[in-house]
């Protein structure tokens, strides 16, 4: 019974070398046609007795056009001669400019296809086409999609950008109030080669159409607001030309939604726990409880600034509710939500946020600290 349920049996009777094991998919749309670019494992190279010593690339890249994403992907067989296997796909790159198509149109195939997994990561190509991202000339022969996946995963683990999988994309766009922030990637020159670079997030409105971008700085506050913080770093100027670097190892956000004078307000209480990484102040001050207090205050200010930047960008003209404010209201006050649901974009833009940041220094390296109070 276990054998029956093994994933690879999905293509029962097909040899691995006859499969097009897809690692990354790029989707562009222009002139009424989708262009799909895939990076697939080079089975001939992987399966050869010489292993890594052969000179062939580890992956192959194919592009194909079609009326739909499915059409283009299926037509790839005519180029590669193999059957596509989507189960191992790592990342889907979507062109920032989809013309008249929405992101929901692109995701339709990945939601409906049996073989495709809901956990594939999504990203948007900024300044380049999705095909150019998949075909990037990286510094060494490697699986590019794996590098892209690592970039997105590590950026999420460092709370720089949200993690957006197919499932997250669908969830965000299902409700007519919610927007979606998808990490944006570009290509930068590195000598003769190219490297991927993170370029903040693309903001999609409730209709699945791109409405603007968040810069890397503006995207950093999202993890605090959505209570999806993993780990992060912060450097603050403590005194003039004296800096403190901290590692934020834990953050917990509590929400409160209320109305005041007919205006919707959110109260976010963010509890941050951090370790000191470097304190470049005069040695004699280091054990002083006052400096600890100043560090906490400085960290609280730093976190507040990040959150405020994100809120300003998302509540601005190019923003959308990617931080699930509508959901918080729906859970807290379903009746009120129903009254403002149809006008959510305006309500969200004018919603006020009260911020309170509590900072706890968990460890201070080799220093012994007496104070552990909350600022």
């Amino acid at each position: 019974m276990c054998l029956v349920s093994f994933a690879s049996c999905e293509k029962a009777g097909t040899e691995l070398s006859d499969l097009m094991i897809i690692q990354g998919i790029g989707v562009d749309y222009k002139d009424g046609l989708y262009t799909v670019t895939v990076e697939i494992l080079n089975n001939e190279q992987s399966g050869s007795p010489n292993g890594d010593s052969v000179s062939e690339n580890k992956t192959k890249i194919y592009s194909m056009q079609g009326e739909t994403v499915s059409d283009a992907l299926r037509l790839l067989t005519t180029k590669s001669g193999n059957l596509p296997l989507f189960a191992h796909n790592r990342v889907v790159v979507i062109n920032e400019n989809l013309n008249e198509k929405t992101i929901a149109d692109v995701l339709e195939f990945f939601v409906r296809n049996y073989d495709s997994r809901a956990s594939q990561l999504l990203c948007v190509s900024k300044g380049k086409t999705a095909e150019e991202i998949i075909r990037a000339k990286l510094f060494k022969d490697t699986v590019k999609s794996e590098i892209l996946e690592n970039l997105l995963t590590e950026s999420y683990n460092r709370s720089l950008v949200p993690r957006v999988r197919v499932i997250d994309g669908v969830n965000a766009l299902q409700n007519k109030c919610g927007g979606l922030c998808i990490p944006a990637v570009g290509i930068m020159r590195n000598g003769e080669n190219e490297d991927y670079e993170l370029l903040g997030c693309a903001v999609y409105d409730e209709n699945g159409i791109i409405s603007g971008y968040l810069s890397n700085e503006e995207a950093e506050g999202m993890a605090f607001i959505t209570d999806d913080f993993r780990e992060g770093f912060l450097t603050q100027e403590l005194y003039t030309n004296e800096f403190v670097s901290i590692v934020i190892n834990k953050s917990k956000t509590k929400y409160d939604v209320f109305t005041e004078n007919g205006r919707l307000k959110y109260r976010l209480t963010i509890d941050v726990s951090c370790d000191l990484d470097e304190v470049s102040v005069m040695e004699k001050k280091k054990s002083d409880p006052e400096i600890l207090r100043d560090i906490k205050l400085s960290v609280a200010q730093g976190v507040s600034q990040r959150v405020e930047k994100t809120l300003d960008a998302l509540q601005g003209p190019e923003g959308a509710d990617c931080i699930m404010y509508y959901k918080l209201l729906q859970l807290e006050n379903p009746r009120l939500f129903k009254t403002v649901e149809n006008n959510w974009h305006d309500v969200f833009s004018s919603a006020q946020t009260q911020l309170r940041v509590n900072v706890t220094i968990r460890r201070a390296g080799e220093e012994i600290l007496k104070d552990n109070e909350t600022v």
Partner: protein
Amino acid sequence: MKQRVSANQFYFALYLSVLSTVFMYLSSPDIKVSQTDSILRPVVFCVLSIVSVIPSMIVVRKHRQLKKERKYIEKTPFLKIIALFYGVVFFFSLVKTFARFDLFVSSELFPNADMTLFLACIVGVCVALSFLDIGALGRASVVFALVVASSTALVMLSLSQELDFLNFTPLMENGFGKFLGEGTLFAFQAMEIGLITVFSTQLEGDVEKGFVVWSVLSSVTFAAIFFFVVGVLGGFADTQLFPTYTAVSLASFGLLERIDALETAVWILCIVLKAALFSLAIIKSFHIAFPKLSRKITGTALFIVCSVLINFISSDIERFSFLSSDFLTVALFILSTIILPVCVILNMRRVKPVEKLQEDI
């Protein structure tokens, strides 16, 4: 000689059988899985199952009373008609089970494969297992239940890191009436309750207490499973044919990246057990309706008819839609748990002393 089974072992078998319904739970446009109400619907199941089992429990009690009084129920034509109806009802339940399993396998495991032989094999295995009778199935269920419980717990543990509380929705958002209706429809999927009457003469031990424990335990398990489905998938659950499977496919535990393979194997175990139970009930019912038909002939006929019918349904999704329609689900549940047991009770007035017994029911 009829096999006996302890009530506890029998309820273990029913537990696994009813679990398969949730594992292979199908999304419907009318009932949203993604709503937090899904977690509370098992409460309706618990209440409704306890109410609907009352006729079956009366049958069990009457059987025990007759045994004490050394009397047996006369095989009247009316009883044969009831048995025939039972056979037909359980046959539809069996076909429905196989059809759902076929949809799952042909969607998630072998999307491009020809299922004809595979389906025939599964039907054959289930019918063959039914010849082991209820005692053996009950004992095996205890072991299976441990495997199912431990693997499901592992999946839940690994899914806990994927939970997002913003995926939940306000409770009873669309009103209590709609919630009650959806909960009732969910409860009607538990066709297993009707099996109690069929196996009533073979059950030993505290049947009533065992049923309450079964009902509560099943409800808690359903609620836990739906908690993870809603918490992990959110609205995405409504876009998926098998939302429970989609949620499980996101689970990974250390190096074990594809726990869904393990869980799917366990689900197949539950499906096989459920089908074996229904096959046994069909064979038993037809044997009462047509005493001259041997169990082997009935079993062989069941295998052939079922295999052909499943393959016929498998080729067209509209045929499956009819089979899984709300009307059929409600009709089968009411027939097997209320109308037919009440008919059995009515027939129980026709008794004879055991000294005149020629053939047990």
